[in-house]
């Protein structure tokens, strides 16, 4: 019996098994790119220009580094409700490239989300499997606290797609399946500073998130929410519940002078 279970587990987790689960919707896999053979993916990052905060984004030239192909970065910006704002391309001049996202670039003070795709300059027969996590930083006066990508949330199955079609071809890289997700933050959150929880929604459907059974929010597709938790509501153990399978936040911790950003 144990042997049968062992083999079933292998099939369940295999390339074919994932493909069948994804196609039928029966226990669909959490990450949908594992059984794809040609894709480029991205986190759904948070940009901030509120409260005099700037955002910096940094990425490595993955296509050049691994596939020896000249490439560029395409940024797709959304507002906090997931509404498309703009699209921007930048070329790689260095091994690592960066973009400062501030009020001048976005046009207003707020916060929202963005995808970044590392795309080939010329069309080739080659297939890509890019899961570049990238890095993002938040801070004031050009001083940034850096954090790596949180979760591969979006993907494009046609790496050679043209600029004017890319937005419509961005798909969730995570299952849309509704679950009872419960996540205990493995950090002792101090009341010496203010803590804001940042969540994004890379799915095609609205998601619900609740913190400590008291702060409840809905997030629209491609949108985000920054949830400031009052110091009196910070618990010794802080718990997130959600219908989204991977509702792991970024924490923004700050006092009057300094910011520390990291994963929850």
């Amino acid at each position, binding site marked *: 019996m144990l042997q049968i279970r062992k083999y079933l587990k292998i099939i369940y987790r295999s390339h074919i098994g994932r493909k069948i689960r994804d196609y039928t919707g029966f226990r669909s896999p959490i990450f949908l790119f594992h059984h794809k053979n040609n894709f480029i993916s991205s986190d759904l990052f948070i940009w901030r220009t509120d409260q005099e905060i700037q955002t910096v984004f940094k990425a490595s030239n993955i296509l050049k580094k*691994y596939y020896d192909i000249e490439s560029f970065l395409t940024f797709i910006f959304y507002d906090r409700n997931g509404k498309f704002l703009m699209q921007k391309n930048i070329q790689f001049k260095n091994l690592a490239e960066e973009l400062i996202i501030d009020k001048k670039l976005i046009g207003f003070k707020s916060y929202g989300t963005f995808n970044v795709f590392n795309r080939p300059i010329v069309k080739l027969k080659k297939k890509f499997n890019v899961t570049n996590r990238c890095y993002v930083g938040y801070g004031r006066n050009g001083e940034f606290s850096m954090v790596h990508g949180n979760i591969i949330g979006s993907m494009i199955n046609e790496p050679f797609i043209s600029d004017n079609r890319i937005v419509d071809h961005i798909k969730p890289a995570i299952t849309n399946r509704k679950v009872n997700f419960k996540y205990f933050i493995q950090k002792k959150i101090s009341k010496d500073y203010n803590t804001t929880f940042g969540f994004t929604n890379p799915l095609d459907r609205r998601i619900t998130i609740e913190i400590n059974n008291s702060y409840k929010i809905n997030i629209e597709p491609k949108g985000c929410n920054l949830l400031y938790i009052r110091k009196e509501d910070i618990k010794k153990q802080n718990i997130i519940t959600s219908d989204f399978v991977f509702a792991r936040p970024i924490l923004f911790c700050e006092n009057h002078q300094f910011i520390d950003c990291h994963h929850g």
Partner: protein
Amino acid sequence: MNFFFHACNDFLSSTLTIPKFQNQGKSSEDLNLFSARISNNAWQIIIPDYVEDDFFWTVESDIRNKDDIYFISSPDSIENIHLNYSLLDLNDHTNTMPEYRANLEVSNTKGAWSSYQSEYPFNMTKKLGSLYSECGLLTDHKAENIGVFIRNIYYLPIKDEVTFYLYDDLHNKILSEFILKLNTTSYIDLSDFKELLSNCFIYSKDCLGIPIYVSQYKNGSLSFEHTHPPHESISGSMRFHYVNQLKNAANKKISENYL
């Protein structure tokens, strides 16, 4: 099983806060926190000097514990480490998805702090491997002090020397060479190269480890974050082929430019 560690130097101290519970909520009722340090070519297991509450153990860094590693275990299991003279995969309490993590926070005398959710998986301790990390992804040339902590944990109680190189990929030049030791948290000061780092990588052919970059700005602000290993940037059946290609190319560049 995961290990945890400190990161401190002349201008930074660290605070390690290890949760007693898994991120799905299950707690470690029969388990305790232990640390290991190398003494007389053996792993010495000690009960660290921690502060605890119902949910966390907190350990401050000092000169003595800066290279210590921390792990959660039942008291009965640790004897096996003494007997085997090697680190062991003692339990699966920290084998979770998402990963079981501790908070590693660095702070300075100006009151600034920065942290990341850290862990060192047991399976990494069994390999020597090689390390490749791009320096421009987490450093800022406007910062006053820039550097990188390299943490290695190897299962055998040895402190062999390993060589790390800082390579300028634009000018095809080795900028510096550093001798570090296995089973330590070492700090490499990169401040002298800050204008060049966006085209640099760090490489060692003899050692795995976690590179954690630090930027300290003039007013004290800090950034503290690790780069991902190269195999996390791509997926598919060919990914280790591409990663080996990348590391072999790095090794070749360094060999060809070594004086």
